Every structure is written in structure tokens, then in C-alpha cells.
């Protein structure tokens, strides 16, 4: 059951015996694993294995039926998503989220957390501080867009860019929130190979700069190349965890994929 729990001294995220069922369906079934600081950890499993549900439980979108979630050593089980984010965990969604009526750089500016200008009182009491932080954030947003080579989109409507570009913007925006651990749900689904390669490079680079990643991905080539270790989820529980080679050679993993989730 807890084969996923390899010894980890410095876990930024720890999931212990997590459970969640929808009606009679156990979408998360006593899942236990941890994400070591500084890694890019992959989370794979057949469709319906419960990967996205796990993300929702970890980030506070769903209330677990049992078990605990720890971020940076703090028990965050049952907290609101914004509180989990305050502990350093940010997540993205499987389907890209569109911000209607905003330009790309405006949509990026939603990312930074605890901006002085997010307090209504500050808008009138300390407009100077609000302006300074907005300038800093805007410069930072444009710098990241440049790094991601999408700075030409900065003043485009955020809804008028391609699906792949949207994924890039999501990742870039999540980075502005300065997470310690970033959960990405299928970052390259529907993204063309060139853009996917770009995303891979960005994730690797950000990881080298200190961000820990936990990413769900069905693109095996992508995930096997990028992530280590890899956690395999099947029918709501952790099947195994190991290096890409170990996982690929594991018969149970092949069975799970061939047999289908349900």
C-alpha cells in the first residue's frame, strides 16, 4: 500500500493515507507519497486513476474524507486553497483557465501574492506603495514573458492566444506567485512538440532555480525525460514509485495501463 513512501528527509509535500470518494466510487484510496524538495516529481496513471482528484485534495479544493496533507511541515488538511497557497503551494488546472477581458500581461499580474494593492484601504491610504509594487510586478511579468519567449503577446487579449500559449502563460503566471512547490496538471496536453520542448526547458530551468515540481502528464516521453522520481497512481492509490527506468520496467504499471483504470 505505502510503497510510494520512500524515505525522504526534506519533503516539501507529504500526502498520508488520503481518501476521497464520490458516492460509491473511491477516487482517492489511501494514497500516500511525498515530494522531495528540489525534485521534479512525475505523477502518472491511466485515465480516471484519480490524479486530478489528488491535486484538488492537496490544494484544498476538495475536503478529504480521511488522511492528511502536509506542506513544508505544516498540516494543511482541510484548509482553504488560499491558505494552502500561503504555505507555498500553487497548482494549475487540467483545462486552461481563461481570463476574459484581460490582456496577457494583465492576466499575469494576478499571479503575485499579497500585493499591497490587493487591499482596498491601501488604494487610498498608500497609493505610492501600490504604484511601486505594480511597477515591479509588471516588470517582472514582462521579464518572465520574455524568458518564455512570448513577450510579443503581452498586450494581446488573454483569450485570443492558442491553447499551447495559454499553457505557457499559466505556467508563467504561477511562477509569479513564487511557489515553493508547483503542481502542474498536464502542462503539455494539446501542446505541439516545439512548444512542449520549450515548456520542458522552462520547467527544468525553474527547477534549477529552486522550485519543486509535481506534474501530472500522459505524454510518457515528456514525463520520463523530465521527471525523477515518478509516482504511479492506479484506482486511487499509489501503485509504485521509482526512477523512470524502474517504472517503465514494472509489469504492474504496464498492466494498469493495458487493463485500463476501471
Amino acid at each position, binding site marked *: 500500500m505505502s510503497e510510494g513512501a520512500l524515505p525522504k528527509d526534506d519533503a516539501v509535500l507529504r500526502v498520508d493515507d488520503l481518501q476521497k470518494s464520490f458516492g460509491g466510487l473511491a477516487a482517492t484510496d489511501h494514497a500516500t507519497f511525498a515530494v522531495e524538495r528540489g525534485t521534479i516529481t512525475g505523477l502518472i496513471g491511466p485515465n480516471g486513476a484519480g490524479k486530478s482528484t489528488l491535486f484538488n485534495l492537496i*490544494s484544498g*479544493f476538495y475536503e478529504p474524507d480521511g488522511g492528511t496533507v502536509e506542506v513544508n511541515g505544516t498540516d494543511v488538511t482541510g484548509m*482553504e*486553497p*488560499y491558505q494552502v*497557497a*500561503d504555505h507555498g503551494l*500553487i*497548482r*494549475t*488546472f487540467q483545462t486552461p*483557465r*481563461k*481570463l*476574459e*477581458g*484581460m*490582456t496577457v*500581461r*494583465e492576466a499575469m*499580474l*494576478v*499571479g503575485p*501574492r*499579497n*500585493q*499591497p*494593492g*490587493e*487591499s*482596498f484601504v491601501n*488604494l*487610498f491610504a498608500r*497609493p505610492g506603495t*501600490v*504604484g511601486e*509594487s*505594480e*511597477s515591479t*510586478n*509588471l516588470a517582472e511579468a514582462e521579464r518572465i514573458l520574455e524568458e518564455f519567449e512570448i513577450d510579443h503577446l*503581452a*498586450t*494581446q*487579449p488573454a*483569450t485570443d492566444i492558442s491553447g499551447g500559449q495559454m499553457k505557457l502563460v499559466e505556467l508563467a*503566471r*504561477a511562477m509569479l*506567485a513564487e511557489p515553493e512547490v508547483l503542481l502542474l496538471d498536464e502542462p503539455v496536453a494539446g501542446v505541439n512538440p516545439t512548444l512542449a520542448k520549450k515548456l520542458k526547458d522552462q520547467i527544468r530551468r525553474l527547477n534549477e532555480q529552486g522550485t519543486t515540481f509535481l506534474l501530472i502528464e500522459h505524454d510518457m516521453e515528456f514525463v520520463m525525460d523530465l521527471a525523477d522520481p515518478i509516482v504511479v497512481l492506479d484506482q486511487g492509490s499509489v501503485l509504485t514509485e521509482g526512477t523512470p527506468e524502474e517504472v517503465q520496467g514494472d509489469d504492474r504499471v504496464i498492466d494498469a495501463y493495458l487493463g485500463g483504470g476501471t
Partner: protein
Amino acid sequence: MSLLSDPKAAVDDLSRPEAWVLGVSVAFALFLLGALLTGALGPTYFLFLVGLAGMYALLSFGLNAQWGFTGLINFSVAAFFGIGAYGSALMTADSSPIAGGFNPLVGLAVALVVAFVLALLIGIPTLRLRADYLAIASLGLAEVVRLIVLNERWLTNGSAGVRGIPSFFEGWPVFSTLPETMPGLRLVVIPGSPILLGTSFWRASLNVLLVLAFAGATFFVLRRAHRSPWGRVLRTIRSDEDLARALGKNTYSYKMQSFVLGSLIMALAGVFYTHLNLYVGPGDLDPITTFYAWVAVILGGSGSNRGALFGGIVIVTIREGTRFLNDVALPIDPAPLRLLLIGVVIVAVMRYRPQGILPPQRELIWPSAVDDRDPPDPPSSGVREQKGGGGDE
């Protein structure tokens, strides 16, 4: 790009709908001026209409801060308006069955506090839930408030309403006696039809001053809020609340702030109305006020403060303009005609411009942050063009 320093460049800078609205407004202003000069429109009545327009603008500002910014569906505009109106009426009027006789500033404060508490009471249970819960709860609230006002006679005088309300400036130095001390004026623009400006004219002028102060301050606050990171979180919530939550925003708190802010502005409209009309009755809480505010916001363009202002003026024009049609022989009464006109306007807007006449267009970033750098390519007009603008209401 001030309109005064460089009018040509300022006009060139406008988008087509902006230029169109400007043109129509100028034509309408000239028409009103003509009516005033020829004596077809009494100056005191005209100022009363300006007051009403300001009041509707305030109502639309309030709803815009809830629906336009955050996507909160509030069907109790009339209730918060009524709280403002009754709150100040009951505190200041001679005939008030409770306190009464206080300075209008006290009335203003009490009205705002009551509206604040009521907004919290309705927001606490509903704002954590899906959007439709607030809609339904607010629909109920509007009716509850209306029935309390109608039936609790010890508190509100019931169907008789509250009379003997002083003007807002009662008890102020200088202002309270200003209308009496101002000289009466007699303007002769067209020989034979002089225009008399007496005490009632000056009193109405003071009211206009008051509503300009209320609406101007509100507009200033909302405009700054809209372009701030605070407003950006609200707009994110409107578009996709889960995204805001994932990025670490306490969406419940933001929705509450937006709801309370909007409710206070609606109550402010009610306070002004009390001292404009000098009488309030249960009829002032009829749902039609809510309906008008929604029409104004959708017509102007959800999320746009200027749009809300424009929508408010259009509503008053239709509401009051139809009164003049009494003189013209028409096969239809003004009251149904009014609703018909509003219906036609809504259908036309939804068909040809679902995002509203003046939707927010330019990107909304704190001004000093964008002014610091080179201007972006043409102000990304058309950003909101695809926006549905809440046409499904």
C-alpha cells in the same frame, strides 16, 4: 489627452462607440439647452431631473461594483436603496415614528451603517456558495425589506410613508439658508418668455451639487479600485473563481468587500433620494428600481463605470421623457410605453452590442505603472469585444 488642452487629439483618441456616445450626448445637451431657453422645460424641474439622473447613476455604480466587477448577482438593489432612503428619512423627518429630527449627516451615517450590516448578514451565508444562492437570497431579501417597511407601522409609518423630511443641508452653516438668501433672477433670453430663478431653483441647485459630490466621489473611488490589483482580483473571480483561489486569493473576502461596497453606494443613492423628494413611501422599494439598475448596467456595459453613468442617464431620459408625451396624442399610455421602450432598447443592445454601449476597453493596470514605460501598441482596444456582458440575465 485632456479634452480641454487638445480637443482634436482627445476626440481622435476615442473609439467609435465613445465618439458616438459623445456626439449623442452633445446633441442631447443642446436639445435640453434649447428647451430650457425657450421655457419648454422649467429650470427647477430640469435640475430635479439632473438629480434623478445622478441617483440612477449611483444605483448603477453600486450594481456595477457587484455584478460588473465581481459577477455577483444582486436582485435587492431596491432594498438597499430603500434602506438608505428610509434610514435617513426616519432619522431626520419631523413625522418620524422613531427618533427623528436629527441632522441629515446623522441620517446619512445611520443609513450607511444599516446597509453595511444588512449586506454582511446576506453575504455571510451566501457568498461562500455558488453564485445563484446570492441571487435567490437577494430576491427574497428585497421582498422582506419591502414588506417590513409596509407593515411595521410603529417603525416606518407603513403605507403612509414618511413626510416632513428636511433638505440635506438643514442645519449646516450658510448652506441651510442659501436658497432664501440668493437673489431671485429673471433671465430674458427670448423676448416675452422670461425665465425666473427663485428660491426653489437655488434649492434644486444645492441638490444637484450634492448628487454631483456623491456621484463624483463614488466614481473616483470605483475608477481607482477598478484599475488596481484589488479590482483585478475581482475581475478574476468574475471570470473564473477557482483560478483566483488557486493563486492564493481569499475569494470569499473579496466577494464580501465588493458586495458591501456596492450596497453602500446603493444606500447612498437612497439617502440622496430622500432629501431630493422630501417624501419616501413603501412604493419606493418596488422591484422596478432593481430592474432599472440592471438595465442601466447591462446597457452601459457590465464592468464599466462610465457605462453605468451613461446607462443611468438613459434610464432617466426614458422614464421622465415619456411624461412629456402626455401632450402628444398617442395610442398608448406613457407607463406601458416606457416599459416598451426599455424592452426595445435592451433587445437592440443585446442583438447588436451584447457587451453594452461603453464596455471597459483599455487594459486596467495601475496608471503610474504603465505611464512609467513606453506606451503599449494601440490601447488593446477590442479586448472586451467578445465579452457576453451578462446578456443572459
